[in-house]
């Protein structure tokens, strides 16, 4: 599901932007702030709304999106302690319909969609024939002959082409992104706030389940899903109602301290919750076993794209393993920085940065399996200097129940 947050693309600095350091080692972290909306960037229906709220805008996978409004730390804290509101309309939706729909979903994804009840969703991987990831996504079972896939913003067209290319089951496949807007409300007070705008009882909706209802008189898919590690909901609806829903949710939540939240907080929240981000922890070179995603990988369900490779890899073993990393002094090991173990470069940080709620600096990294035990001392190379860290269990953060 998880969209491509993380400013790892090199962007041209305009003159007078703050000079940001050019990391000779691996990649340039560049912040393109207050990007003017240009014809080339795609926009959600809430673009003007974000700008009116003085959001710092950023080019995210070709979309003009809010990075932050009141600040990443404040927004992160709001979600952990109260609630935050996210425009996630840039995400893609692929609808698969017809008698062949389950077969198609089963063929292109690694999790077992036959286990889904109507009204249930599962996290899954869209797979290559090499057992690696085209994308990660949520699969929703709408009916026996209708599945809704929610995919990453930057991958939606490639994902659609991939699903189409493998559709030997005569299912109907629709690239439905433009037909949906999506808003996420996340945090311990999210349910209370959303409940003010709907007569549909929200408490009985179980985690990773969904139903249709009216929110603010608008027909919505209401899903108890999210990318923050908190309780919360994601609602899908016709884009024409975006501004109304956004503003009415902000109003309903103002009493509770609901804050609009951007991609910056979205990233720090999912990192604390140890959730993967495509292009970082997973990509078309990583397998579910390597990424710690064995729990969504079910070769027993029957053959799927790449399953033969995965069955083989399970036998022979993986050569790299995704682990949690905690920095041991105040320095920050960031995306792409090398991991050094026993004086030798042994892996890479896939995502790294401050954990605002936990008040430490964390990351995820690929290391050799025989160096992956909890407590293993490692170093992260930070722009030429080695900073101490150690391997820790994930998730870093788990919400109180």
């Amino acid at each position, binding site marked *: 599901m998880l969209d491509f947050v993380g*400013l790892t693309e090199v962007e041209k600095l*305009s*003159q*007078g*932007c*703050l*000079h*940001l*350091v050019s*990391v000779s080692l691996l990649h340039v*972290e*560049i*912040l393109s*702030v*207050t*990007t*003017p909306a240009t014809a080339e960037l795609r926009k959600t229906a809430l673009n003007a709304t974000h700008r009116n709220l003085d959001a*710092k805008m950023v080019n995210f996978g070709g979309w003009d999106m809010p*990075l*932050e409004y009141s*600040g*990443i*730390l*404040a927004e992160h804290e709001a979600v952990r302690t109260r609630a935050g509101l996210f425009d996630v309309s840039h995400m893609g939706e692929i609808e698969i319909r017809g008698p062949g729909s389950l077969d198609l979903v089963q063929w292109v994804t690694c999790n077992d969609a036959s286990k889904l009840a109507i009204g249930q969703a599962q996290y899954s991987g869209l797979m290559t024939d090499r057992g690696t990831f085209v994308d990660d996504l949520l699969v929703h079972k709408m009916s026996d002959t209708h599945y809704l896939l929610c995919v990453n913003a930057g991958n939606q067209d490639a994902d659609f082409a991939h699903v189409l290319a493998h559709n030997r089951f005569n299912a109907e496949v629709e690239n439905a992104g433009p037909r949906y807007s999506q808003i996420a409300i996340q945090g311990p007070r999210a349910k209370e706030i959303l409940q003010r705008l709907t007569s549909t009882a929200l408490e009985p909706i179980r985690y990773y389940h969904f139903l249709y209802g009216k929110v603010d008189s608008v027909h919505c898919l209401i899903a108890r899903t999210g990318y923050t590690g908190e309780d919360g909901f994601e609602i899908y609806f016709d884009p024409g109602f975006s501004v109304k829903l956004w503003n009415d949710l902000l109003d309903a939540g103002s009493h509770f301290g609901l804050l609009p939240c951007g991609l*910056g907080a979205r990233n*720090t929240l999912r990192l604390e919750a140890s959730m993967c981000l495509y292009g970082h922890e997973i990509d078309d070179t990583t397998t579910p076993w390597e990424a710690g995603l064995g729990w969504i990988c079910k070769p027993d369900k029957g053959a799927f794209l790449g399953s033969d490779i995965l069955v083989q890899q399970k036998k022979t073993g993986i050569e790299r393993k995704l682990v949690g990393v905690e920095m041991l002094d*105040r*320095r*920050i090991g*960031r995306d792409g920085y090398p991991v050094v173990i026993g004086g030798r470069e042994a892996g890479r940080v896939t995502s790294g*940065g*401050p954990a*605002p709620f936990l008040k430490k600096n964390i990351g995820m990294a690929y290391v050799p399996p025989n160096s992956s035990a909890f407590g293993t001392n490692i170093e992260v190379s930070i*722009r030429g200097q080695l900073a101490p860290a150690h391997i820790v269990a994930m998730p870093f953060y788990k919400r109180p129940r």
Partner: protein
Amino acid sequence: MYPADYRYTKDHEWISLQGSVGAIGITDYAQHELGDVVFVEMPKVGAQLKAGESFGTVESVKAVSEIFSPVSGEVTEVNSLLLDSPETINKDPHGTAWLVKIRVSDPKQVSGLMDAVSYEAYIAGQAKEHFA
């Protein structure tokens, strides 16, 4: 907003000269562009800085930014407040969030920098270019 007696660089540092010692920091424009500051890396007392050269970094949640010295000189003091409270840079960039103090080798270097009026015009021009 921008103290009239400070001088400013194109890289958004400021220097405030008291006699031969200058306090150096980053401007309000810089802290706003960076976002929430979470870590500052600074030189040691005694370090020799050269005008235009990087002498440390200011890190926000998303970005790492080098800081360039406006002038040449020797570091006489480092602001230890920023080690525990880096967010001070966001709250008081022109005051308590000075980064280092240096003994300025050539005070004429300071007067060659932008004054407050020129700096404000400069950043207004940046905004215009952004939206051009």
